[in-house]
């Protein structure tokens, strides 16, 4: 009797926690949708026109491209940098080869020889992305510093959009673009293309709440004065883009989001490199939040009160919800297998009758969560003016919840138990973003 009540009690608690996790996920999604509709001019579509910039007063921009073994993509990235509509005389490109062992440096040198006034190449021993960025900063002459990953290609007007936004907001320390996936081929890449559009919507909402906590490595623009004020890049658990954003927030700089500026980035094609990348991101996020725990305060507005805590609670909630759903799914599959084993297959088992539609509280709440995810996706699609294949959306809606916990759990394990850092070099030697 006691065992029965204990089991029932545990089941009730597990169910209540799963409902709580779903409530939190839906709540945060709804909140960000409200912010987008309420504060983003009623859901306007970003203009595709390049903003007017007065040529006589155009600030000089240095584009830093840190690269480690990027021979496959560096040429395309340099072409995209050179194709910027921002006047050629008003920006320079600095490639920092971080001790690549492939043809990255040679390719970059060839471009530098063809465009000596616009491209410079720095070669240094391998030391990590933050050292490459700092080496580039030391050579940069710009009033603005753009950091560009060697596997990402901004659209021609991206730089102009970011500079225009920064020029109108003197308190802004940085501006972030909308990131979209470049030429997805595999199922995982299609999935990520949908995920990136959801991130476009979320990043926009964070910016409207003045709560962006990452200045993405693929492409971001910084005010030189802000970087000088907060200091050089740090290793920051191999997530220097996240740490820099937190440091800017701590020092009172605004971080803008400009969805009109689009950058196309390469994403991992298979599970292994994707896991490695995401474990690094999640691990870096958790460690940096610990390092910057003073930001979890009302002094930092929405960032400290909701956005950062939401990420932590969301991580725990997502892991729990995954565990709960996975155990239920596993149980159902086992039961189904046992049933087929003992009773044999019969179409009678799967007969079509509305009575047997598995509509219960959990499926109802799951459908609600999916509806909110679709609304966020549509917002991201509108903001980024991008399209995603139906495969991308479907795989995101139905597979992402089973894949993301893999890297979340691994990152959490590393933070809490193993305490082993991630490696940017190792990740990039195996696969590119």
């Amino acid at each position, binding site marked *: 009797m006691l*065992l*029965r009540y204990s*089991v*029932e009690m545990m089941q009730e608690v597990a169910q209540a926690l799963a409902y709580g996790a779903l*409530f939190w996920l*839906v*709540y*945060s999604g*709804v*909140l960000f949708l*409200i*912010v987008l509709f*309420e504060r983003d001019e009623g859901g306007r579509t970003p203009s595709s026109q390049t903003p007017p910039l007065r040529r006589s007063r155009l600030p000089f921009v240095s584009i830093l491209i840190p690269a480690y073994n990027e021979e496959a993509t560096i040429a395309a990235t340099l072409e995209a940098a050179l194709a910027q509509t921002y006047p050629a005389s008003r920006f320079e490109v600095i490639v920092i080869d971080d001790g690549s062992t492939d043809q990255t440096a040679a390719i970059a040198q060839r471009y530098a020889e063809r465009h000596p006034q616009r491209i410079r190449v720095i070669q240094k021993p391998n030391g990590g992305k933050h050292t490459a960025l700092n080496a580039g900063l030391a050579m940069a002459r710009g009033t603005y510093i753009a950091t560009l990953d060697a596997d990402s290609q901004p659209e021609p007007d991206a730089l102009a959009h970011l500079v225009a936004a920064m020029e109108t907001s003197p308190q802004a320390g940085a501006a972030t673009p909308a990131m979209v996936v470049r030429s997805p081929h595999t199922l995982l890449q299609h999935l990520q293309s949908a995920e990136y559009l959801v991130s476009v919507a979320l990043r926009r909402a964070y910016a409207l709440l003045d709560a962006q906590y990452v200045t993405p490595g693929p492409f971001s623009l910084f005010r030189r004065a802000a970087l000088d004020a907060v200091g050089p890049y740090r290793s920051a658990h191999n997530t220097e883009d996240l740490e820099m954003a937190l440091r800017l927030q701590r020092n009172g700089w605004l971080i803008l989001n400009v969805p009109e500026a689009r950058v196309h980035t390469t994403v991992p094609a298979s599970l292994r490199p994707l896991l490695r990348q995401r474990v690094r991101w999640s691990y870096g996020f958790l460690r940096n939040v610990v390092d910057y725990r003073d930001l979890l305060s*009302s002094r930092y*507005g*929405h960032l400290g*009160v*909701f956005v950062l805590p939401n990420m932590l609670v969301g991580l725990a909630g997502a892991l729990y919800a995954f565990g709960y759903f996975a155990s239920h799914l596993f149980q159902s599959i086992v*039961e189904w297998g*046992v*049933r087929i*084993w*003992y*009773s*044999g297959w*019969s179409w*009678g*088992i799967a007969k079509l009758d509305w*009575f*047997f*539609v598995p*509509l*219960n*509280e959990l499926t*109802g*709440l799951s*459908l*609600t969560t999916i509806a909110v995810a679709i609304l966020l996706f549509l917002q991201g699609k509108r903001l980024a003016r991008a399209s995603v294949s139906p495969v991308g959306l479907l795989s995101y809606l139905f597979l992402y919840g089973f894949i993301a916990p893999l890297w979340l759990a691994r990152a959490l394990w590393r933070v809490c138990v193993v305490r082993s850092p991630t490696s940017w070099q190792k990740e990039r030697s195996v696969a590119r973003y």
Partner: protein
Amino acid sequence: MSLRPYIAAFLITSAMFLAAFGVNYLFDKKRLSVLQGMEERLALDILSLETQFDLFDAVSCNQLEENNPITAELSELGTKLAFMEGELGADDPRVVQLKKTYTLLSIKDLILLQRVKKRCNVGPIPLLYFYSNKPGACPDCQRQGYVLTRLARAFPEVRIYSFDYDLPLSALQTLKAIMKTSPPLPVLQMEGRMLHGFHSFDDLIRQFPSLERLQEKHSSSSQPYPTTTPRKR
């Protein structure tokens, strides 16, 4: 820092959750009313059959058997009731109430079947199956239920009556007393023989001579096992 979006989001999310719970509640209510309707129809069918039986002298055995619409409906009711048990829980008072009615109807059908069998020597062979839904009380009951589903499909001449051993229903207690049913569960009773514990399909055929004879009959007619609506415990 404005709290407006936080409050609005909370209200909207709460409304969405309430709507999800509400739709689910209405859906369950609809399903339960379907079960209730089935039970009412079944009660009427049984009453009709009983009346026919009382008028036995005027009705031939063949007519009595041909007019029996209960089997399929009782089987469907059992399947749907088992589904609702999974959805709402075995302890849900609405489920327990429907299950009591279902059990009563099953017992009445069993009695009627035995009376027809006695007088006319026709009709299906009853197999009584006692199970328990209490956690830990009967770990083999689920497997046994699946085996009986296969058995019902293979031998339509066998009618399986499933009873929840722990259901608080006086008629069921009486049936258990008459049949001398006792744990451990699952318990299978057929033609005066009682089996305890899990038994596979082949094992059941070996244990019950009637099933063995039926299998031989099917084999000699060289027809595959006929199929019928699966019967759940």
